[in-house]
């Protein structure tokens, strides 16, 4: 049954590309929309305890150890929601039919890669699916063949290749030291020979590779270019989920289930997390480009996730996973807003914009919700996840880091408030007097994401009891 999450999209691509003239090309959007809805439904129906265990006895198509747990549920749900959002944004921002068709195919391939990453329990299969995701991401970034986008894609390829070399070397060393590649075998071997130099080197190389994939400081060089130069729909996908699944989810999964919380790993995670948090926030303050500012903001927010994980305590890990989901939603929302602004005004230079709320009330209002949640303002979703991370930092004895996390939240509020003021508030420029709100479907994507942000925040006790508490067990 779990295999359907990767088999259905592949089947979808094959059907979409059948030589049936323009029929499939015209219906590609509806087809992909349905496919992602099924993906979300499959993720939800597999939630442990939601359906009877009968689903689990259905033999998987592959003879592979696909697995599904609470963490997989949250990540697969995030993949479904963000992919669907990216699809909707692509429908309104990619004008050419052929380009849109190719975009949909690559989006589905990226989704296969991400679902595979989430469900495998073997380190080499994990690498293969990371590559599926990365290859589709390179092409998606360079999609419009403009020089800046090609440059962004090239930087991503280069950094990703370095990460690949590190991870492949680590896999080879792990195989050498442990004799197997499944998560269970590696975990047992690591715990029985935790002082081995080869094991330490392999874990270090793999974690560094994931830091590059996740765009964490000091491995972040590729991220602002890739996020800001990619087409609007691709920026949503990259910032919302691809980087998170490739770097952050994999890190959470491997540290919690395979490598374990050694002092070295905890120290490295905390340091990289706090540095990323601060650097991203300061860099975001100085940006004039809307998407570039959001890219640096992503580095900062991912820093929170890594710092939460680095505490090594249950509350910190839960906070990190919860912030993972929240960030996927509110950062996608802000990128959808940036896409709407770019489409209607033709620019994302914040110095040239202003007063857009008057003409684009939905975009302005949803952007306000996105920025308040990112800054950790109660009762929105971002507040709760940040609160959990800060409390975990304090309780685990890293009080200075907790204070830095609080101060970074203030910085986040400062740069996002500046963005909101420059883009949506103030006097509307004469050149924008005739612009209109985006199409209903486009605006609906932003509304749904905004409602999710509000809903998860307001109903936090329910979310905690039903979904997050399970991690403690």
């Amino acid at each position, binding site marked *: 049954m779990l295999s359907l999450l990767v088999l259905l999209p592949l089947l979808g691509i094959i059907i979409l590309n059948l030589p049936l003239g323009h029929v499939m090309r015209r219906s590609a959007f509806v087809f992909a929309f349905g496919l992602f809805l099924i993906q979300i439904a499959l993720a939800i129906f597999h939630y442990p305890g939601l359906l009877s265990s009968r689903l689990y006895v259905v033999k998987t198509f592959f003879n592979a150890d696909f697995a599904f747990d609470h963490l997989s549920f949250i990540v697969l749900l995030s993949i479904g929601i963000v992919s669907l959002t990216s699809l909707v944004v692509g429908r309104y921002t990619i004008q050419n039919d052929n380009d849109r068709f190719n975009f949909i195919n690559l989006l589905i391939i990226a989704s296969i890669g991400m679902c595979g990453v989430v469900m495998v329990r073997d380190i080499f*299969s994990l690498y293969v699916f990371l590559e*599926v995701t990365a290859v589709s991401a390179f092409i998606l970034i360079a999609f419009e063949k403009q020089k800046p986008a090609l440059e962004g894609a090239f930087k991503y390829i280069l950094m990703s290749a370095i990460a690949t070399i590190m991870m492949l070397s680590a896999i080879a060393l792990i195989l050498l030291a442990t*004799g197997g590649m499944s998560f269970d075998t590696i975990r047992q071997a690591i715990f029985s020979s935790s002082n081995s130099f080869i094991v330490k080197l392999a874990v270090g190389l793999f974690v560094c590779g994931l830091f590059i994939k996740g765009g964490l400081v000091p491995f972040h060089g590729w991220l602002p270019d890739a996020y800001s130069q990619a087409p609007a729909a691709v920026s949503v996908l990259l910032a919302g989920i691809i980087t998170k699944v490739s770097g952050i989810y994999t890190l959470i999964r491997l540290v919690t289930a395979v490598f374990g919380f050694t002092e070295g790993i905890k120290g490295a995670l905390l340091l990289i997390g706090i540095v990323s948090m601060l650097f991203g926030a300061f860099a975001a303050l100085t940006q004039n480009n809307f998407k570039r500012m959001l890219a640096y903001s992503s580095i900062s927010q991912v820093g929170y996730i890594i710092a939460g994980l680095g505490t090594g305590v249950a509350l910190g890990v839960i906070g990190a996973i919860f912030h993972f989901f929240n960030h996927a939603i509110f950062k996608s929302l802000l990128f959808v807003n940036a896409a709407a602004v770019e489409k209607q005004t033709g620019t994302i230079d914040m110095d040239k914009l202003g007063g857009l709320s008057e003409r684009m009330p939905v975009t302005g209002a949803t952007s306000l919700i996105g920025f308040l949640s990112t800054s950790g303002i109660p009762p929105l979703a971002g507040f709760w996840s940040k609160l959990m991370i800060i409390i975990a930092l304090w309780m685990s004895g890293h009080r200075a880091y907790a204070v830095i996390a609080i101060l970074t939240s203030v910085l986040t509020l400062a740069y996002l408030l500046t963005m909101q003021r420059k883009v949506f508030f103030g006097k509307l420029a004469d050149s924008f007097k005739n612009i209109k709100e985006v199409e209903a479907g486009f605006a609906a994507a932003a509304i749904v994401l905004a409602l999710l942000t509000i809903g998860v925040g307001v109903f936090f006790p329910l979310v905690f009891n039903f979904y997050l508490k399970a991690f403690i067990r």
Partner: protein
Amino acid sequence: MILDKLLLISVVFAALWTVMTRSLLKAALGLAVTSALIAVILFRLDSPLAGVFELSVCAGLITAVFVSAISLMKPLTHKETIALSRARIKKYWPLPIIISAVILIFSASTVPTSIRVLPEAMEQNVQNVLWNSRSLDLFGQIVIVLAGVFGTVILFRESNKKP
């Protein structure tokens, strides 16, 4: 053991030459030599199938694709070649030092001298490995090839629209 060490050193030199040479054609050939040497090492490690794949795909097929692509490109002028050569040396001079340092670190560490071949891998033939043990990886490879096809179509196809 001496032959293995010689092969490993040759791989490092071939890889260095591939990166540092100023001619694209020589770089492609350097890559082919590197792959061929790796294939020999794989044969010596009792992994003939991996050796055959390395030789046929990396040393053979990929080199052919690179050389065909390079033959379509405009050659550089003498001035450009010299400038490129200088820039390359400036950019990559730390590479031999880094490689030497890595070799030194590894020689000093406790890397097993004889590589252990996994018993289960020895017992299975390629068909079993690909279709049973690693079927998921094969599926992943198919999807990567599919992504590559879309990439080629999107990035390298000339637009039909006239300017």
